[in-house]
């Protein structure tokens, strides 16, 4: 499943991060790595971007960027 398909309040574990190199590195640098648990805190009022909670801090990502992140174990 893609991270962008998660609903507000759902959590999942990151499996793989795709996309072009710069974006991927930025995502990794923010601590969104394989095996990390992310929670969708909310979507912006216009449904894009989205707010994630990773390791206790809050990060926003555009939906198109989140669509590069494969997740599993959705809760």
């Amino acid at each position, binding site marked *: 499943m893609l991270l962008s398909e998660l609903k507000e309040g759902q959590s999942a574990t990151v499996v793989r991060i795709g996309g072009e190199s710069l*974006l991927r590195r930025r995502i990794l*640098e923010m601590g969104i790595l394989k095996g990390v648990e992310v929670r969708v805190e909310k979507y*912006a009022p216009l449904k894009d971007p989205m707010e994630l909670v990773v*390791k*206790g801090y809050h*990060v926003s990502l*555009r939906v198109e960027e989140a669509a590069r992140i494969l997740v599993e174990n959705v809760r």
Partner: protein
Amino acid sequence: MPTKRLVIALAGNPNSGKTTVFNNLTGTRQKVGNWPGVTVEKKEGHVSRNGYDLTIVDLPGTYSLTPFSIEEVVARNFLLDERPDVVIDIIDASNLERSLYLATQIRELDCKVLFALNMADVAGSRGMKIDAAKLSELLNVPVVFTVGNRREGMDNLLQQAIELAESATPAARTRRVKYSHDIEEAIGRLKQFMEMKAGRLPYDTRWMAIKLLEDDKIVKERLIAAAPEAGSHILQTAQRLHTHLAQRFDEDPQIVMTDERYGFIAGIIREVQSATIQQRVDISRNIDLVLTHRLFGFPIFIFFIWAMFQLTFTLGEYPVQWIGAGVDGLSGAVGAALPEGILRSLLVDGVVAGVGSVIKFLPNILILFFCIALFEDTGYMARSAFLMDRIMHLIGLHGKSFIPMLMGFGCNVPAIMAARTLESEKDRILTILITPFMSCSAKLPVYVVLAGAFFGARAGTVIFGIYLLGVVLSILTGRIFRSTLLKGADAPFVMELPPYRMPMAKSLLIHMWDRSKLFLLKMGQVILVGSIVIWGLSNFPRDVAPSRDYAAETGRITATADSQMATADGSERRRIEEQTEQAVRDLRREQKTEQTRHSYIGRIGRFIAPVFAPLGIDWQGGVALISGFVAKEIVVSTLGVLHAAGESDEEGALGQALIAAGMTPLSALSMMVFVLLYLPCLATTAVIRRETSTRWMLFSIGYSTAVAWGMAFVVYQIGRLLGFS
């Protein structure tokens, strides 16, 4: 005792409290400038401590030291080339894992590092305990506890930094990130090869080997520069190893290494941190429930923006008037103190009027920057970008571009300076290029006069249409430039939403004052020169023989009046006085018109009249537009002078004069379109140059004027074809 100089660099993530620590360490003795060649703010401060003269440099806040953003390149180059004596890395205790990612990269750089474990109190309150002694031992780095917003630990921090700088032990080479077997092997082989081939290299060879395997372009260039011949051999080997690793892991080695660094950090975290929290349980989340709420988020945002606008331009209006009165007073005093002549005219009409026109923006700028500092320091700026990104992304811009663009409706000068909040340089340049199309408040008087005279009851609609045209063109420009001139990777919107913080008054004031000071100093110089040039153009040459002897005519009028007065009674006298005054005023205006016609600016106006002819604008209009370069308000007053409508008369008189001079509704519309779009005023131009470069400033001038001409041409010519006049 001779003082010894030490350079201390402050590194850390954005929102790690780095700026607060910097402000605490240096107080108000800061120097703000730009890093050479880029528009990233550089802050430096000096402190004397224990007989040492410490220079503290605030590096840009970054999450990493990859060469992808200018902030990171600037921070890294400083560490590599300036070789500060000590690097203090601010570690946000409540975000230990991510802070350590930057820390491990700094550790790899072969410099003396000291950790400031900041905001451990916040982490503690969230149920997180950090074993600092263990952290210090595991990474072989001294650790100092600090609480930035309570000024705790600052003395100790400096003390430890001085001790570290003076200690004989070189930067610790142990306890760095250890990569997996295959990568370590590749690093080892490349390092050995490098040492064998090139001998001495400017940087730590292990670090260079790691960077070459990560395909780091800047390190590659530096290697070639340091060792032109051996360098290419080394690059070949590096390339081979890179390919080998990519095949081995079926993944880009950069990504593998990032992953392994985090793996190394995870190991440290397990040993030093007692609990991890998955959610922000603090007040911040509750605030966000309201401020980024699906329904209330936007109305609240609009309210804040409205309040900022009101404060900046409505509240700011009072001090602006006081300053205006002060400037008038000054020019009156200078005028009275000097004899009539060229020096007086230069000082009063050139210097005082010109510099005064900039100084009077100061209250607006101070208030605006205070509001922006408030947004930034509380953490609301990130939320506004979060809310607006969807809309701004349509133009190819970042959510943060919204505020500068909106401010453009007030005044472009603070608006363009507000673009500083954008991190990506491309976003910043693009925002700066399109902001001038937001019709600023100084252009409104021009529309009011023209639309009022030519469109009567529909004036409001026409003016609204002009504003709308500006917005549409800025969107189009944004889209076009994004896909051509400023192409390239759209900066990813991977942005932290930091916890809300109570802003500190001191930090707000420093922030506000630093930026305003920059504005005053740099703008002042440019404006001074610019106003003197325009003054010279409109006052020279002075030796043109007037077609009439104005002094003699004035004398005749007063003489006639005097003789009439002698025989007149009370009410008759008043009538004669009024008539005389009117006649003298008319005469003076005619003199001024003639002077302007003959001045250089008048000549330029008539010379380039053919350029304006296809737009339906006459030479007087052309001159008014040129003089509008100083400030857009001047367009109206110049038109007034040239059409001899009188400066003190109401707008209606100027409108009548324009109609009498043969201006049509269509050419008035064309002129309004031109005023909306053409080159920004002198102050804006100067600020564009400061925030970007001379090249972009020239581009902005050329582009906006070309668009203005093109649009006015289309409006006028199509209007004519459609049978309007």
